[in-house]
């Protein structure tokens, strides 16, 4: 196994009695794009804040690059860049001046500011007041700030929030290129399965503060595979005709099958029609994130 860049052990944050983050064991390996997936309010941002040492865990621990946080935060943070929740900016300063504030603290040359501005395509607007930026531009400024110190680990909390489709595409490409071109490990959170699906190599699913699944994205993909539903007039007659296919259930008026290869679907339909069964509708139903959550919660699976 690769070096663990992020590792939490039993990480818990309680506000009053409610555990917002509940015994989380997060493992992010070097070179991964780790998708941190959960609905709004699932505990993603709280977890990320604890990773960055912004809030203190009620119990459990965080290690970045094998060093405990917040105890050795100072040594580690130079290697981490982060965009936590909504992007931070000083409204009265220009985009470039905002980056210069961080560059001064990290002792970086002006050239590096130009580089990150180019990466997030803000060069043309660098001189404008950040307060006048559109939401998408603020988001990109936040990403630029995260990249500024040439970090080894980039933590991005909902980076595509408020972006238009083109912007989302751009950011997605940028994130995908990070491990390849710069050897950066990325931890990116989102509430959209489709988004994580398009860029992550590994995924952690959080729900009500608990980690329900953690592992390669392919494992999750397998779970989200769709069902095929065939509505017929006489399910009892239809049932034997579907012999040998991965049948899940025969409901009132419909057969539900696990995903089918196209050939199987065609054969089944023609068999049904040949057998005198009327086929009203054939549909593929992808399971939504919510359904996967429900299933995971139902199993009580903790990876």
């Amino acid at each position: 196994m690769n070096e663990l860049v992020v590792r939490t052990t039993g990480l818990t944050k309680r506000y009053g009695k409610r555990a917002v983050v509940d015994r989380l064991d997060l493992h992010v390996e070097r070179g991964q794009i780790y998708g941190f997936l959960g609905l709004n309010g699932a505990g993603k941002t709280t977890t990320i804040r604890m990773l960055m040492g912004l809030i203190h865990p009620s119990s459990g621990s965080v290690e970045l690059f094998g060093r405990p946080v917040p105890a050795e935060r100072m040594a580690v943070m130079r290697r981490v860049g982060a965009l936590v929740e909504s992007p931070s900016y000083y409204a009265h300063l220009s985009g470039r001046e905002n980056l210069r504030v961080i560059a001064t603290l990290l002792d970086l040359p002006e050239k590096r500011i130009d580089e990150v501005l180019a990466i997030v395509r803000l060069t043309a607007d660098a001189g404008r007041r950040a307060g006048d930026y559109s939401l998408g531009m603020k988001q990109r400024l936040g990403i630029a700030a995260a990249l500024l110190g040439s970090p080894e680990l980039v933590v991005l909390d909902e980076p595509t929030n408020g972006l238009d489709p083109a912007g989302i595409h751009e950011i997605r490409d940028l994130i995908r290129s990070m491990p390849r071109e710069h050897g950066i490990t990325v931890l990116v959170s989102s509430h959209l399965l489709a988004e994580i699906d398009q860029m992550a190599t590994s995924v952690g699913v959080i729900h009500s503060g608990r980690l329900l699944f953690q592992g390669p994205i392919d494992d999750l993909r397998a779970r989200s595979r769709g069902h095929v539903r065939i509505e017929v007039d006489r399910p009892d007659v239809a049932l034997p005709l579907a012999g040998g296919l991965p049948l899940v259930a025969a409901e009132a008026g419909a057969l539900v099958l696990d995903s089918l290869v196209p050939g199987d679907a065609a054969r089944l339909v023609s068999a049904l029609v040949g057998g005198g069964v009327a086929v009203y509708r054939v549909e593929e139903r992808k399971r939504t994130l919510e359904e996967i959550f429900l299933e995971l919660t139902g199993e009580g699976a903790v990876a």
Partner: protein
Amino acid sequence: MLRMLRVEFMKMQWPLVGLVVLLGPLIAVVLGLNPGAGAGAEAWKLAYGFATVRYAWLFYPLLAGVLAALVCRPEHMGGGWKQLLALPVSRSTVYGAKFFVLVGLLAVANLVFGAVFIVAEMAVGLSAADIPWSEMGPSLLGGWIAVLPLAAVQLWVSSRWKSFGAALALNVCLTLPAIFAAQSHEIGPWYPWAQPVLAMSGLGPSSAKGMALGLSMTTLWVVIGGGLAVALIGGLVTFARADVRQ
């Protein structure tokens, strides 16, 4: 730390801060200008006493609160704290830099006050030769030192409270009783918010023995030194432990 200070300077809302630091003392002097000025060194001292009462009684302590709030404001507004504190800078450095800037601005304000006072009095006819440097120097320095504990208290609350108004309201509530405290010989030396006016305008116990900067040594060490230590350490500890949630 030096880098942090440079960053503080970059982030400052200069138009607003400049306005407060420059215009504030200016107004205080102009409104408090002694109308019946005579001539010579005595007239200078009289005018100075008159001006400092106006300035140091309410205005200077309030200025400390306003500036503390202004120093923290950029961080509260755009989620600056979470970005700043996720960088490899220690929280005590962040807090310390803010305190230094605040204290520096208060020193500038006092110098502006002194300068404006001299210019204004010369404009109404007092002679430059009689400027009471030996009185004004210690007075300005003493006022600055006396305001430090209040500045530390205000930075403490301003770093925690997002609301500009709340921090300022507390400031006013603590400053107003100074009107009574400074008049009383029993309470005066013990009430931190009364110290700037006592230090600056020579209203403190005037027995020359054991005095420094217009204050008794006990007051200087216990109230100002102790107050500063408590407020600064308290603010630092709170800041270092706080969860950054905004």
